[in-house]
């Protein structure tokens, strides 16, 4: 590991949080609504990650993302469990890509239930694929300044070399002379 004991690595307590233990089919089927519900926290986390290039600095934003995921799934479980389950099973069994085209009826039921209890519409097609702007109060990160090494002294110019020098200072020349 290139990390010395002096460098900062977060402790086990900081890194242990309740994780979203759901399968890929659940994520796939809940993706659009989950993304819209947690849009701001997700954008904040992804911005932090791309600006800092350091996962150690974006831990809090990541925890906020997971917490928002828990909130959303909690609400779905409380109000729309059956509809979501039906939709998820359909998506899961619809082939290797888990695509949505064969599951439009269950999707409509699920969307209606979400609209009723969470009050949010399905985002328009292509919403996530487009570039999304985000307003943040976090300051732009600045890297530590680069410290160049000391400047090496210039070599002597030809005029300096042509100056007569004291013979005693150059013992190898006195040997020749």
């Amino acid at each position, binding site marked *: *590991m*290139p*990390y*010395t*004991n002096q*460098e900062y*690595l*977060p*402790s*086990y307590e900081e*890194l242990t*949080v309740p*994780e*979203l233990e759901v399968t890929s089919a659940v*994520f*796939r089927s809940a*993706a*659009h609504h*989950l*993304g*819209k519900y*947690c849009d701001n*926290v*997700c954008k904040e*986390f*992804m911005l932090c*990650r791309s600006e*800092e*290039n*350091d*996962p*150690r600095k*974006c*831990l809090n*934003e*990541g*925890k906020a*993302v*997971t917490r928002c*995921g828990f909130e959303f799934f909690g609400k779905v479980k409380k109000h729309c469990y059956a509809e979501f389950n039906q939709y998820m099973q359909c998506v899961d069994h619809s082939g290797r*890509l888990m*695509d*949505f*085209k064969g599951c439009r009826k269950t999707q409509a039921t699920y969307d209606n239930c979400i609209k009723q209890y969470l009050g949010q519409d399905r*985002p328009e*097609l*292509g*919403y*996530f*694929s487009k570039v999304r702007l985000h307003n943040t109060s976090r300051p732009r990160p600045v*890297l*530590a*300044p*680069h*410290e160049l090494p000391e400047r090496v002294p210039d070599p002597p110019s030809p005029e300096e070399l042509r100056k007569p020098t004291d013979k005693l200072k150059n013992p190898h020349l006195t040997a020749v002379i």
Partner: protein
Amino acid sequence: MASYKQDLPPKGGFDPIDFAARAPKRMFGGFTQFGLFIGVTGLAWVAWSYVKEIVRKEKLELNDARIAVEPFIYAEKDRAILTHYRRCRDEENELMKNVKGWETGTLWGEPVYHNVRSRYIKPSLEELVTHMSPKEQHDMIFDKLLR
């Protein structure tokens, strides 16, 4: 002597052998073949222009689903990999605590990377799998969750 039937040519001799070259009989003529090709291609072109839009929308929906879920995956992955770094560093401390001249994270005291600006450094594959058994290393490299 047993009775036998001699294998003789039929009465009147064999039929004459037909050795002339015969061209196969084609279903369509030349113009019809070209016409069929152009016709089918044209129909397919028109049909595709309708289907293309539907396929584009389906792919876009799948792409949306992937991007929407990315932050959750990355958050969990970041925490997991930082846990792994921590465990590797602790393991190295434990392993080399009685070795004279060894400092964790360096090569006998010399830093591994020249990092003036304190950037985040991603460890190489060798550094990540150092404390794993060969079986686990193979699984990590080839991305297997279960053997």
